[in-house]
Structures are given as C-alpha cells and as structure tokens.
C-alpha cells in the first residue's frame, strides 16, 4: 500500500515538475491583454460571437479582428471595460452585418425535382443544387436555422431576409450557407468590393464602370426609399448629381428590357434621387471607418481624384487633394459647360465630400509647387495621380496658331474660369465659328458658342454623323440648337489675313472607304476637292491626352513609366499601381480621355489598392474578377414576358429659352415618372428577372 502511495506521489511530482519546467522553457509570448479581456467576457464559451470560445474572442479583440462589443452575452458595461483595456471607443471596430446577395427565390427555375431532406447543404451536394442558376439561393433556410439571434427569416419570395437590427455579425449564417449567398461584411468590405464572376449581378451592374448596384437602387426607388437609393449609389459613386446629368449610361445598352422594349432610363432615375437629396435641404449622413492615422495625397481634384479621396476617407485614412485650378472638380467643372452641369450643383456635391474631413489645396501645380519629395516630407505614404487629360491634340496643319484659333479644352476652361469670375480675362468669340472634331468636347464647344451669341456655328468632321463618338442626345440637342454640320471634311490649312487673324479654313472633301481597326469606315480624301469657307474663329477639339510634362522635371518621377499615348502606365489595370510602388493612377490620366463614370470607378479601384498599400497588405487584384467583361449566361437574346411600355422621355427646356442662357437644359423627371420608370425595371439578376404582370 505504502509503495503505491509513494509511487503515485512520486509520479505526480515528476509530471508536475516536468510540465512546469516545460511551461517555462516552451513559453510563448501572448499579449497580457488577452488574459485580461478573457476575464471580462462572460466565460460561457457559447460561440455566439462567432469565435471558438471566449479565449479566442479575447484574442480576436486584441488582434483587431473583433470589436470590444464582441461578447453578445455580456452587456455594454463589459464592452466599455474591454474598450478601456484596448484604449479605444467601444464601437470603434466596424460592426459586421449579414447581407443576402440573392433575390431569386421563387422566381428562379429548377432543373430537377428534389425530394431529399430540407437542407441546403444536402441539396447543394446534388449537382450544386436544383436551381438553374449556379450561384443562387437554394431556399431551404440553413441560414435561418443557424442564426442564434432570430435575425434571419425566410421571406415571402423564397429567399432569406436579414433583420439588421438583430444581426450581430457572428458569421454563423455565412458558414451555414453552402452557396455563399449570405456574407458578413463591414462597411469597408462593401466599399472595397469589386464585381466578381461569382457574384449575383444583373447585366446593367456588370456594365457600369463604377459597378453601382443598379437593380438595388431602382428597387429602393420603387419602394419610395429615396434615401436608401442614394446610399446604395454612394457605396460606389460619390458624384451622383454629376453622373446623373452627364453620364452616357453604358448600363442602359445592356438593360435586359432593352432587348424587347426601350431600356429603363437608369440614369434619369439616378438623377432623380440625387436631386431629391439635394432639394430636401439636408445631406444624408455618410459614415467613415475609424481613423487609421495614415496619410494619402490625391493629385488632381477631378472625378477620379474626388472618388479616390472619398473612398480613402471612408476607409479611415487622412486625405489631402491638390489641384492646379482655383476650385475642385477638374474636367467636370472646367470642361463640362454650365448648361449641362450647373456649378452650384457640382459645388454642393464636392462640399459633401470635403465635409467628411478631406483636406484640399487649390492653385498648386504638380511638378512646380510641389512634387513627390515634398509630399513624402509631409508624411504622405501613398500618392494618387489623377491629373486627367488636359492637353489638346494639335491638328498639325499650317496656320493653326493664328489669332482666333483655340483648342477645345483650352477654350472651355478659359470660358468656365471667366464665368465663375475666377479671372478677369474675358473670352472674345467670333461671329462665324468652326469647331473641328466629332466628340463630346466638340459638341460642348459648339453649344457654348451658340449660347455666347455666335451667328453661325458649324462642326467640321471628317467622317459622317453615324461615326461621331459624341453621345447621340448631345448631337441631337446641338442640331436642335441650330449648329451646322459639315461632314466628310478634313481641314488642310487655316488661312489668315494680313494682321495674323484667322479668316478662312481650307478643307478636303472625303469619302468613306474600308473599315479600319476601330471598325469605323476610314475616310479617304477626294483629289482636288479643296474648299475654302469663311470663318473668324476656329476651335480644334480632336481629342486630348494627359499633360505629363512634369515627369522630366521631377527627379523621383523620372522612372515613372508612361504608355505611348502619354498616359500613366500601370502593370495591372485592376490595381492601378504604377511602377513606383507608392504611386497609383486612375481616370483620364490612366485611360486617356474617357467617361466620368470610368474615372469614378478608377478612383475607387485605386483607393482599394492604396488601402491595401497603407495597411501593409500585398496590393493584389480581386480574385475571380469580372473586369470589363460580362457573365456570358446573363446575356439573353430574347426576354419572354416583357410588355412594351414607353420609356419616360427626358424633359428639357425649349430651344428658344435655352440657347440664350447657360441655364441647365435637361430637367429632372417628376416623382410619379420616377415611380413609373422604376416599375419598368425587371429587377434582373444573373438569370432571374420579374416578368411584367399584365
């Protein structure tokens, strides 16, 4: 008996000594705050927070993966105590919320009849589920069963509906869902999201360069939730007032209703809610993530720069915008005339972005007043170059620098500066004006000249109306306003009088030949067809590129790679990181002259990369990215179940009234029209859509 007692005591003693020695030798440092916080949590190991037990949750708080209010059992007092240990505000980590991405539900069609147990997980193992759609909700509610907080219920339409009030963001539903329909995300995650091949996306949302969730905002308009619609747009596009007015809406070309009927007037709906917010007299609150203390500089306050600054600020970084002009807005302020986008409206929108705490410095030119070195010295860790495309291409014909000759952007900018009384310099115009070019800049020039009182304004374009790159609505508006069009004419010489003033333009007549690389028929000159017209003012608007002259002047920038079009080169179009790792680009400076909405999308894309760079993550493109392509199966040839309903026409000022002033020419649609137009939306997703009921 005694030996047994002695042996067991000895064995216990040896084991104890060995283990205590091991715990010293193999000691791994753990943050002491983990133990401290663990002591404060409920200790129930319930797993309700989504972590495997309280110890894991405490580690999560210390590692910044969870907020101090992580524990769902303990109340706000515990959250405050934990926050005190971490030295932060109780709510400071961003709350996560569950989002349902599929609204197919009962309208989705089935491939086979399933009679197994009512579980999504089981069903998903039979050929990925019975639904035609490979990504959609299976509808058996595994997520509903997994939620410990009754925050999810099966909606009447056959897909789960999340109650945001009750959702604690634990992630149980995300784990339970075999189709990744339910994802738990913070606001920052949403702002950083880019379209993926695996997402539930309607054709319009796949097309939008800014990747706005179009069906979502139209559905909100339909419900009368205009604030919700504005917030949905603002997750992707901070310049909705501007875009609602000037966007050529590529999304509408892919509208599924457009296959059988007129497409939904998506952009007018955007303008309607944007104007609704502005006219309501108060701004909707925009939330920002807690400050990271990192600084980023945005060079160029145009649409790309404003978009980049807006998203970086919302992600919690400190942003300063530098701009060479007296006011922010870039090309949408100085290139787009007042009658298309009133400056007052633009300023209201820009003020909203600056109000978030974005700093700005006007009247400073990159390469002259500041450069990369001075930005670094001021503590900026990343730089966004959104310098736009402000340099007009020249015609390269004799006499194009005579008195009375202008280039497009130069003319529009000079006039805009004068109109905003930022300079005393007046702009004198002629009586017989010719504008060379067929793009939007050319149209903006002729419509501006008409409003300034020029007697005769004509467009000289070397192809025909069909090949003009300008927006069709703009061309039509110019025609209504009395602009003359001189097609198939290529200028060869500008003729001056003895004082060096322009007095005529000689051009060659052209005819259309074989299609060229762009698919448009190439104009071929007709021999001996030289014609001279009398003019006293000439504007050349044949395209523009970025003014990257500063590259040579700045030491740090000498190695910045440019493309042969003088745009800033980025190895990957999806990260927009230049060959200097802390320099990012976007907008016209990267794409060459392009759409406003493209610049806005580029700004957000760059903001994502800059966020990765500032938070010391690798700068990587999105996985399974759907960049500038479409999901094949979502593009249909026919759309059964659509009844023709005429599209709401764009209200505009009568021609007599609008050509005498710079008052906005296009008007906003009425609320009842917006309701009607939103009801035309088929609420498409990848395969599903709502058929017209009557």
């Amino acid at each position, binding site marked *: 008996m005694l*030996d*047994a007692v002695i*042996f*067991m005591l000895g*064995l*216990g003693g040896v*084991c104890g000594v*060995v*283990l205590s020695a*091991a*715990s010293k*030798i*193999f*000691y*791994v440092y753990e943050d002491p705050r983990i133990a401290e916080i663990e002591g404060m949590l409920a200790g129930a190991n319930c797993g309700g927070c989504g972590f*495997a037990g309280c110890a894991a949750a405490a580690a999560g708080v210390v590692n910044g993966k969870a907020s101090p209010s992580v524990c769902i059992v303990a109340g706000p007092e515990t959250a405050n105590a934990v926050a005190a240990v971490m030295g932060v505000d109780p709510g400071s980590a961003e709350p996560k919320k569950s989002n349902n991405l599929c609204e197919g539900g009962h309208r989705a069609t089935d491939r086979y009849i399933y*009679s*197994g*147990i009512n*579980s999504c*997980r*089981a069903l998903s*193992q*039979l050929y990925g589920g019975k639904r035609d759609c490979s990504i959609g909700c299976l509808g058996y509610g595994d997520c509903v069963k997994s939620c410990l907080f009754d925050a999810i219920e099966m909606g009447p339409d056959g897909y789960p509906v999340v109650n945001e009030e009750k959702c604690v963001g634990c992630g149980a539903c995300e784990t339970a869902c075999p189709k990744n329909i339910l994802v738990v995300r913070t606001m920052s995650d949403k702002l950083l999201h880019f379209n993926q091949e695996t997402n539930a996306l309607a054709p319009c949302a796949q097309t939008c360069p800014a990747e706005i969730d179009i069906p979502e905002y139209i559905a909100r308009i339909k419900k009368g939730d205009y604030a919700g619609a504005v917030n949905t747009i603002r997750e992707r596009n901070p310049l909705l007032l501007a875009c609602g007015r000037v966007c050529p809406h590529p999304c509408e070309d892919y509208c599924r209703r457009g296959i059988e009927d007129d497409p939904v007037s998506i952009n007018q709906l955007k303008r309607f809610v944007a104007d609704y917010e502005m006219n309501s007299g108060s701004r909707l609150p925009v939330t920002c993530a807690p400050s990271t203390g990192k600084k980023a500089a945005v060079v160029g306050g145009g649409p790309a720069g404003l978009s980049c600054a807006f998203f970086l600020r919302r992600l919690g970084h400190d942003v300063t915008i530098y701009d060479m002009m007296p006011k922010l807005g870039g090309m949408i302020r100085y290139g787009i005339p007042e009658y298309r986008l009133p400056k007052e409206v633009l300023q209201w929108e820009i003020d909203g972005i600056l109000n978030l705490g974005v700093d700005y410095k006007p009247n400073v030119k990159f390469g002259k007043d500041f450069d990369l070195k001075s930005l670094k010295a001021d503590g900026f860790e990343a730089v966004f170059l959104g310098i736009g495309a402000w340099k007009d291409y020249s015609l390269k014909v004799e006499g194009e620098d005579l008195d009375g000759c202008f280039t497009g952007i130069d003319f529009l900018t000079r006039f805009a500066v004068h109109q905003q009384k930022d300079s005393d310099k007046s702009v004198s115009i002629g009586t017989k004006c010719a504008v060379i070019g067929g793009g939007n800049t050319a149209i903006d020039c002729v419509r501006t000249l008409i409003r300034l009182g020029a007697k005769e304004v004509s467009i000289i374009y070397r192809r025909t109306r069909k090949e003009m790159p300008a927006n069709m609505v703009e061309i039509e508006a110019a025609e209504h306003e009395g602009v003359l069009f001189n097609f198939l004419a290529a200028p060869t010489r500008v003729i001056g009088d003895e004082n060096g003033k322009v007095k005529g333009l000689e051009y060659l007549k052209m005819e259309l030949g074989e299609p060229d690389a762009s698919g448009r028929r190439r104009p071929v000159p007709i021999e001996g067809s030289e014609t001279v017209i009398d003019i006293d003012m000439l504007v050349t608007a044949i395209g523009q590129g970025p003014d990257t002259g500063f590259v040579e002047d700045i030491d740090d920038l000498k190695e910045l790679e440019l493309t042969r079009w003088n745009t800033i080169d980025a190895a990957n179009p999806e990260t927009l990181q230049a060959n200097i790792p802390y320099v990012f680009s976007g907008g016209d400076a990267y794409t060459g002259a392009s759409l406003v909405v493209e610049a806005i999308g580029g700004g957000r894309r760059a903001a994502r990369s800059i966020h990765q760079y500032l938070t010391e993550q690798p700068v990587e493109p999105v996985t399974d990215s759907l960049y500038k392509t479409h999901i094949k199966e979502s593009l249909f040839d026919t759309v059964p179940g659509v009844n023709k309903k005429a599209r709401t026409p764009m209200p505009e000022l009568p021609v007599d009234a609008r050509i005498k002033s710079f008052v906005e020419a296009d008007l906003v649609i009425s609320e009842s029209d917006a309701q009607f137009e939103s009801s035309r939306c088929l609420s498409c997703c990848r395969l599903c859509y709502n058929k017209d009921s009557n």
Partner: protein
Amino acid sequence: MGDYIVLIISCIFVNNIMLAQFLGNCPFFGTSKKMETAVGMAMAVIFVLVLAGVITWMAEAFILKPFNLEYLRTIAFIVVIASLVQFVEMFLKKSIPALYAGLGIFLPLITTNCAVMGACLININEEYTFLQALVASFSYAVGFGLALILFAGVREKILLARVPKPLQDTSIALVTAGILSMAFYAFKGMV
C-alpha cells in the same frame, strides 16, 4: 518481417481499435460530421498514440515491472499519457507552430482518450517487444483514422438520404457505425 506485416494487418483491420474493439467512440462520433475535421483528428490520434505507446512501454518495462507495481498500471498510464499530451502541446506551440495550428485543437480532446489508453494496455498485455509495441501503436492509430475517415465520408452521404425523423443525426450514425463494424468483422479469421 512477416510477423510485422501480420501485426500491422491485424491492428488496422482485424482488431480495428474502433470497429472491432469499440474503443474511442466519443471522437468517432464527435468529429466525423465533416471530412476536414475527421482527417485532422485522425492525424492527431496517430501522433499521440505512437508517442503514448512508446512512453508507456518504457514506463512498464523500466519502472512498473522492476518494482512490482503492475497493479498501478492503469492509473499510472493515465497520469503519464495526460502529462505527455500536455507537454507535447506546449512543445509544438513553441517549436513547430505550423503543426500546432493543424493539430492544436484536437490534442486536448484526446488527452486520455480510451482508444489511446486501450492500445497502450493491449501492448503490455500482449507482451510486445519495444519494436512491436511501436508498430502496433502506429497501426492501431492508422486503423482508428481509417474508420473515422470512412465514417465521415458515409455521414456526408447520409445527409442526402431520406432519413425518417426519429432516426436523424446521431441515431442513424449509430446504426451506420454498427453496419460498418459488421463489415469489418469480415476480416476476422484472416490472421
């Protein structure tokens, strides 16, 4: 050499620790819902059982037997195995963090698991030599892992079947385990 092959086959199939000797039921049912967890658990059992088999054989040969304390075998083994697993856990955490990340959460679960304990006691009862004990421990663990992974695969398929309500989940798992066990009885008489 032939003896060892017979020993290995006997331990893995004929005398499978789980399906023939019914030891280690708790992890067998607890961690077989998902293939991923089952594989993790199988690896952890192999790791621990080999170590435990070696250490308990040495405890028996060098301490218990010389001092005629064989009657304390069970309780002594419990203390030794428990301490060993704790020690290994600390060691892995410090020295091989990658392995710890994979096995970490399973190690405490099998601190004094009956399959581990059972295999160690069988080694002594059968009076195996050191090398035999090592091979047997490894084979028993492989057998357990095999049973666990097979069972996890079956359970993932059962999800698709129409199971009457009263039999769902654990009940049908027990029935299935019984059938699986009967299937293993076919190996009886092989060795």
